[in-house]
């Protein structure tokens, strides 16, 4: 207990504040402790969900074929809920507290609600885990979606609602902070606080949809209503199912702006453009819930086209804005300090040994190239016919969440260990290796999932299909070589995840305590606010522009390839 209590100890002044030696922010004890609490809980969810990654991947790699179908779907449900929901949402509450009261230098208001929110979320998360693990026939494993009318235990829907209510309660202190800061003044919030605010609004929208979906299904399961409409449930469910992934996206982008600044010396090249991109998200990104309904009966083509494109690709345009603005912020910040000449000198001379920096930059690159491009391509209603419910879809969301958001959050956790827990890493070499090992292994595993899905049509959500479909001569055995590569790299990715948890927990327990004023090697060369004094026009952004052109070229190539494959098919549709 004393070891845990010591994690929440720092030297504060009489008012409970201290000044961060890296960011220079005035941090109140109350904010810091709740960020630590939500962050640690998230890492526990990561460890639980990550262990199920092992059994799930080793079953889909039919060369090993670890689990029987009777256990596989239970393990898959545990993997999905703990990683896609609990690891992410606990981290996101921490991100809100950083982006709100911490960046603004305030105490955490309504602390009892923060505590109540945490307790409710933990009760909900344990309840969801228990309801999945203890489900008995005729109830089936819910997977992530719990699609009605497949029978799923009512306890699952009830505890999922409890978790969502908890997340709403936990977000209230953040909204109270923003309210107090802006009520009486015309101040413009810092960009990170603004990004966190938009994230919070998107989160509330998602949560309301989730409560509606699960309450509807629960009412049917406990016989309050006689029948349930699968189409209506799907529409409600995907408000939260996709909405939570939009929270991940916005929280991740907010973290990108934050971390590239504090460890990479990035600046904001245009407040106007970056904020406009967040506003575009606010209006349009939740339309993306329709991505899951593109090959459903009963929804018109016009409805699908409007929504899947976020209204003329308003939100995809916003992401492309951040794709330029964030690397350009690094380029401008570093060029102004005279760090790196030529086209890419600013990038090659960056602090690549700092795992926080490397995690963040890999997150940006891999999210964009693997997750973002595939998301837009598979979100075109026609192309979706070739992606829907294949392993390619699973590849897509591992690129966005398991590579993009998870790497950004790895960086954030490592940053918090240094700056809030004030601990040195148990091993700098191992800590530095995390983003490289995890990024590389997970990228290959993700690409193999995409290939298996798009080139071989291997279905998702099945315990076996590649080597054997029981009762049939047919199988997807042509994809066996793809799965040999997938299995090995999935194992390596899981080991890299173990490395992350090991270094994090090890540093918290055994890492040396950093002296006051020690930046722990986090600060960029030349300090945080080194200023060459040049206005933005005088700074070259050639490197970022070249990178973005490469990105657009890859985007166009993937787009054309997918459309080519589609047009080779037999004729379908009116």
């Amino acid at each position, binding site marked *: 207990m004393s070891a845990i209590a010591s994690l929440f100890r720092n030297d504060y002044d009489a008012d409970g504040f201290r000044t961060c030696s890296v960011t220079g922010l005035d941090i109140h004890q109350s904010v810091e402790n709740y960020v630590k609490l939500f962050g640690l809980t998230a890492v526990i969810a990561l460890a639980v969900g990550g262990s199920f990654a092992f059994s799930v991947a080793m079953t889909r790699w039919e060369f090993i074929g670890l689990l029987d*179908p*009777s256990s596989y*779907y239970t393990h898959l449900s545990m993997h999905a809920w703990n990683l896609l929901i609990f690891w992410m949402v606990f981290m996101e509450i921490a991100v809100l507290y950083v982006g709100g009261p911490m960046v603004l230098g305030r105490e955490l208001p309504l602390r009892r609600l923060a505590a109540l929110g945490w307790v409710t979320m933990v009760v909900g998360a344990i309840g969801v885990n228990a309801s999945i693990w203890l489900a008995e026939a005729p109830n*089936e494993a819910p997977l992530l979606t719990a*699609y009605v*009318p*497949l029978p799923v235990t009512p306890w699952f829907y009830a505890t999922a609602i409890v978790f969502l209510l908890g997340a709403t309660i936990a977000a209230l202190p953040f909204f109270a902070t923003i309210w107090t800061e802006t009520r009486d003044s015309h*101040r413009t*919030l*810092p*960009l990170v606080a603004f990004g966190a605010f938009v994230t919070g609004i998107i989160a509330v929208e998602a949560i309301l949809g989730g409560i509606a979906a699960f309450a509807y299904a629960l009412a049917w399961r406990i016989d309050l209503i006689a029948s349930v*409409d699968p189409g209506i449930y799907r529409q409600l469910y995907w408000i939260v199912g996709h909405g939570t992934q939009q929270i991940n996206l916005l929280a991740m982008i907010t973290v990108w702006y*934050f971390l590239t*600044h504090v460890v990479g010396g*990035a*600046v904001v090249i*245009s407040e*106007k*453009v970056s904020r406009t991109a967040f506003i575009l998200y606010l209006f349009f990104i939740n339309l993306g819930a329709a991505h899951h309904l593109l*090959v459903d*009966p*009963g929804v018109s083509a016009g409805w699908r*086209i409007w929504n899947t*494109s976020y209204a*003329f*690709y308003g939100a995809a*345009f916003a992401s*492309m*804005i951040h794709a*330029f603005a964030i690397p*350009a912020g690094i380029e*401008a910040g570093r060029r102004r300090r005279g760090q790196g000449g030529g086209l890419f000198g600013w990038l090659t001379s960056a602090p690549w040994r700092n795992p926080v920096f490397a995690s963040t930059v890999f997150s940006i690159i891999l999210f964009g190239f693997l997750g973002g491009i595939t998301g837009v391509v598979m979100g*075109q*209603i*026609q192309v979706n*016919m*070739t992606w*829907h*419910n294949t392993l390619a879809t699973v590849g897509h969301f591992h690129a966005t969440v398991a590579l993009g958001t998870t790497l950004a959050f790895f960086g954030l956790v490592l940053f918090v260990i240094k700056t809030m827990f004030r601990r040195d890493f148990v091993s700098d070499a191992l800590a530095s290796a995390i983003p490289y090992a995890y990024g590389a292994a997970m990228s290959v595993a993700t690409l193999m999932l995409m290939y298996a899905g798009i080139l071989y*049509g291997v*279905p998702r*959500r*099945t315990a076996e299909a590649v080597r054997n479909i*029981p009762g049939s001569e047919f199988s997807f055995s042509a*994809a066996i070589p793809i799965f040999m590569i997938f299995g090995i790299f999935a194992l390596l990715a899981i080991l890299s995840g173990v490395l992350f948890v090991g270094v994090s927990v090890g540093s918290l327990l055994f890492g040396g305590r950093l002296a006051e004023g020690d930046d722990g090697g986090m600060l960029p060369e030349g300090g945080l*606010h080194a200023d060459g004094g040049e206005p*933005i*026009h005088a*700074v070259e*952004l050639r490197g*970022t522009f070249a990178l973005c052109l490469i990105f657009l070229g890859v985007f*166009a190539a993937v787009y054309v390839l997918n459309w080519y*494959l*589609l047009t*080779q*098919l*037999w*004729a379908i*549709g*009116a």
Partner: protein
Amino acid sequence: MSNPLDDPDDDWWNSPVHRRESIWLGLAGAWSLGIFTWMAGFTQFGDQNPVGTTYEVDPDQYQERVGEYKEAAEETDDGLIPPEDDVYVGAMRFNWDGLPAVLEAGREYDIHLGAYDVQHGFSVRPEENLNKQINLQVFPGSEWVIPMTFDEPGTYHVVCNEFCGQGHRTMHGRFTVVEG
């Protein structure tokens, strides 16, 4: 230029945007509108669109309809030959009712998709070319009528790719497409 942890200057809205960022905004905007136009246009001129007509139908009624269709169809060793241009497929745990079926290449059929119990995934591909595949969601309560014209003879395999229960992976069906 500002940093993301401080309030920006008062005139932040009027600060000029870097030339290269402006160019990028133009490229990204044009690309966004371009792919929107292509997707919307393809519903008019393209041959592959997940577009059909949906009817609300009670799952039991749909099962009856598939039963009537099976009565009317001609039974062969390779499966049912549909009496007309309508082909009925009923998804159920863990079977594709109405399959296997024998169809003619080059002939347009109206494929009727519906389910008797829970949600299923209708996933079909020719045996010799796995990267040609189409996936559609199937519900109880909806009858989705989608035209399809198989252009090449061969065996087309149908699997379920929406989780429908423990026996889900065994759900397999077949179209045999013969020269028309």
